[in-house]
């Protein structure tokens, strides 16, 4: 295949700019800030937090600049032109013929996620200034938080899978540190370990997937694009080239998807996410909105061609990604109904929303899924920070909705308003951002012919509306209970409860002091991020408002890679090489794009051709009705159950057996934790240790005993014959010899330095003479 085909026309080079060329600085700044916080943070006036906030602000400015220039770049391209990503790569290290690169790959997807991550991280850091004030590991918290964001940013703009893996693992490590921030409590450190190991289980898949792709793709990418087999650009083109063996690419896609399951908390590895609530609330917020859990979805979106071809997306009957996504939506939404802990409700809601993203990606709704990452980040961060605000100022560090909350709408008006906006966005009510992304996913799933999955999505929307209404009712309506009612009783909590109890006793005492005033609104450092986020939760959907017509679909224009066949006249080279000239083949139009369906003949494809559903108000009205139905049903039931204590409902699970079984099943999280810890771990660990013990006692010991007997006999003979006669004889003789030599040489040891020097130099002179003689 000759990519240097005759050029028919030369298009004007795409616009670029400083922010795009230097986007690699975005993760570098937090990384440097992390080192500085660790080294000198404790000596700074604000204990290092100012470095964290400043670095995130700098990253935010750079990301915003990059986003702006990317938009200009897209606008400078013609409609049918593939907008080349701004790629720069350097050689990181070389080993045994492998060239491991480091660099940036800036396209619409990475620009969106970079901006979201930097934005949310900045707000979360500002929020943490107040939320963690007086914490005993304040400096380390900010260091880990900064590195965490840095890891995500590095992963997002990685140009190759090795750098991607690096960012991915940095996030895994930092999530461990942050979830176990208050490790003195056993439950917290167990949650941190659980998160780490569950994600690691999936990470094996990432390693396998990356290596498989490398060995399968390297030859092709080197020959046709001059890129390494780790390069994301190269892998994408290879996957769509019609070259890959279908089995190889399927296994690689499945391996990569296993990593996504672990990271994004998809069924059946979702169990770590709710436990991750053990960390401080800002961490939950960051972890669950824009970083970490989004990484798995991002992996699928980033290497979409691999999944597209490997798992036969858009094929008939659905695929692995869709099944996992659909299962996750429903089972986690069901779990959210039985939680008393407000953060756990939000955690299961995150899992469920990630299920939507996966479902969208699996069904070929790439753009709606990416857009859902965008909108979800804002409203979910807002909800988590709102929950933190409640626990900080009203419910005395408790997250128990049934025991310590209720009736808070009057005392916390700002938190309440932002919460309601975000809840409506999460449920997908019309003008709020969630509507535009979630409905798009559901709509496109149906449009691509997966009606069953569309129904699952609608059921999920119903459940989302219902459990969020339940949580809102318990938190903000009804009568105040427990800590919110002003009881500062310090009853010991259940060990599995998550609650942000600050380690420092002084800080705790001061909180006690102002907690005695009863619940109140949080300070500006906490409410300002809430307000900013709620504005975005309300408005960010307008960036891709399909109902208002084509001109509103800006996200589609800016972010979605165009599925056109590209004939490159230059390869992406070293630093500074960023102007490519695209020449779309003359007869090729995007409407007839072969990308994703057939083998491209002249050039390469970087993205498969996807269809977009036409927006219809009738479909939107249907999902609206479902959402409102969910809200109404849940509201009525909550009111009857929690406020009126209706006799027909209270204790229903005790009276009706089948409901009781279902409830217990949900409370125990489908017994998945038991399955993992008691069944899988035991069945693997116990037989192995038993077998090892038996092997040790019977076989190894037997061998050892016979060996030792043999050795004893042998050594007796050796002692008599070899040691006494040969060795000792030699030693004695050599000692006698040495002694006589020493006596002879004694006079030379005069102790006079100059004499030694003379000897040294004369020896050297003799040696030099010998050398000269030998060489001539």
């Amino acid at each position, binding site marked *: 295949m000759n990519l240097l085909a005759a050029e028919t026309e030369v298009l004007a080079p795409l616009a670029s700019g400083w922010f795009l060329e230097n986007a690699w600085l975005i993760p570098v700044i937090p990384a440097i800030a992390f080192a500085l916080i660790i080294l000198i943070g404790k000596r700074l006036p604000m204990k290092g937090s100012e470095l964290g906030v400043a670095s995130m602000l700098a990253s935010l400015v750079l990301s915003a600049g990059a986003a702006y220039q990317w938009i200009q770049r897209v606008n400078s391209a013609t409609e049918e032109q593939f907008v080349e990503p701004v790629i720069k790569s350097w050689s990181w290290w070389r080993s045994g013929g492998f060239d491991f690169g480091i660099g940036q790959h800036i396209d619409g997807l990475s620009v969106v996620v970079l901006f979201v991550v930097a934005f949310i991280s900045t707000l979360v850091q500002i929020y943490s200034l107040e939320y963690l004030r007086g914490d005993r590991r304040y400096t380390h918290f900010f260091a880990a938080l900064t590195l965490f964001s840095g890891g995500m940013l590095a992963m997002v703009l990685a140009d190759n899978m090795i750098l991607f893996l690096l960012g991915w693992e940095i996030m895994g490590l930092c999530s461990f540190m942050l979830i176990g921030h208050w490790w003195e409590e056993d439950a917290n450190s167990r949650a941190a370990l659980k998160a780490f190991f569950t994600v690691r289980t999936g990470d094996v898949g990432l390693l396998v997937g990356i290596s498989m792709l490398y060995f399968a793709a390297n030859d092709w990418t080197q020959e046709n694009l001059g890129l390494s087999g780790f390069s994301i650009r190269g892998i994408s083109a290879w996957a769509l080239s019609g070259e890959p063996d279908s089995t190889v690419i399927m296994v690689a896609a499945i391996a990569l998807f296993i990593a996504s399951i672990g990271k994004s908390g998809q069924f059946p590895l979702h169990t770590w996410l709710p436990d991750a609530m053990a960390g401080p609330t800002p961490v939950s917020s960051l972890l669950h909105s824009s970083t970490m859990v989004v990484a798995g979805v991002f992996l699928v979106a980033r290497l979409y061609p691999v999944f597209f071809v490997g798992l036969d997306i858009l094929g008939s009957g659905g695929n692995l990604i869709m099944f996992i996504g659909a299962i996750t939506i429903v089972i986690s939404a069901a779990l959210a109904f039985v939680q008393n802990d407000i953060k756990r409700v939000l955690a299961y809601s995150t899992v469920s929303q990630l299920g939507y993203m996966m479902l969208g990606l699996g069904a070929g709704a790439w753009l709606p899924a990416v857009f859902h990452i965008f909108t979800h980040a804002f409203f979910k961060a807002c909800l988590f920070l709102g929950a933190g605000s409640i626990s900080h100022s009203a419910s005395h560090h408790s997250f128990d909705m049934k025991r310590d909350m209720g009736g808070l709408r009057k005392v916390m008006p700002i938190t309440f308003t932002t919460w309601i906006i975000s809840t409506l966005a999460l449920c997908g009510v019309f003008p709020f951002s969630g509507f535009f992304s979630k409905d798009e996913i559901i709509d496109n799933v149906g449009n691509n012919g997966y009606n069953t999955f569309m129904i699952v999505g609608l059921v999920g929307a119903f459940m989302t509306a219902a459990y969020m209404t339940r949580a809102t009712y318990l938190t903000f309506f009804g009568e105040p209970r427990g800590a919110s009612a002003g009881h500062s009783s310090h009853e010991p909590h259940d060990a599995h409860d998550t609650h942000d109890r600050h380690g420092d006793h002084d800080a705790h005492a001061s909180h006690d002091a102002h907690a005695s005033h009863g619940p109140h609104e949080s300070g500006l450092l906490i409410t300002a991020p809430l307000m900013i986020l709620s504005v975005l939760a309300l408005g960010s959907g307008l960036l891709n408002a399909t109902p208002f017509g084509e001109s509103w679909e800006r996200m589609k224009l800016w972010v979605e890679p165009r599925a056109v066949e590209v004939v490159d006249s230059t390869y992406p080279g070293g630093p500074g090489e960023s102007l490519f000239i695209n020449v779309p083949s003359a007869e090729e139009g995007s409407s007839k794009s072969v990308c994703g369906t057939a083998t491209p003949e002249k050039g390469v494809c970087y993205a498969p051709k996807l269809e977009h559903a036409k927006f219809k108000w009738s479909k939107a009205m249907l999902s609206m009705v479902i959402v409102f139905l969910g809200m109404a049903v849940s509201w009525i039931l909550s009111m009857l159950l929690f406020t009126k204590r209706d006799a027909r409902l209270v204790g229903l699970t005790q009276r009706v057996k089948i409901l009781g079984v279902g409830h217990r099943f949900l409370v125990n999280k489908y017994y998945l934790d038991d399955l993992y810890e008691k069944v899988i771990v035991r069945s693997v660990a116990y037989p192995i240790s038993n077998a090892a013990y038996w092997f040790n006692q019977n076989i190894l010991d037997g061998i050892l005993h016979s060996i030792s007997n043999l050795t004893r006999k042998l050594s007796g003979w050796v002692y008599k014959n070899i040691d006494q006669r040969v060795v000792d004889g030699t030693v004695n003789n050599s000692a006698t010899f040495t002694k006589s030599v020493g006596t002879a040489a*004694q006079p030379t*040891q*005069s*102790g*006079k*330095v*100059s004499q030694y*020097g*003379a000897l040294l*130099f004369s020896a050297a002179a003799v040696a030099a003479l010998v050398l000269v003689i030998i060489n001539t």
Partner: protein
Amino acid sequence: MFVNQFLFLAAVLFCIGVYGVIARKNAVLMLMSIELILNSVNINLLTFAMRNGSTDGHTFALYIIAVAAAEVGVGLGLVLLVYRNKKTISVDELSEMRG
């Protein structure tokens, strides 16, 4: 390029150095003689580096200068300690090493 002059200079310096090390009783003068020896080697290195048109010799010479500086530092420290203990820096007085 005539290298003979340079090599001759180096040889002369080397011999002066060797003579100094062997004949002088004063420890400081011995250290200075050692410096002479090292620098004669530097001259040799630079000479051949010039002749072969490579910079390897320069690199080595720089290393030797650095090592020589360290060596003088240690040597002078030793001399100072010896002087404190013995009130002399004549090397003939230091014959504890006699076998």
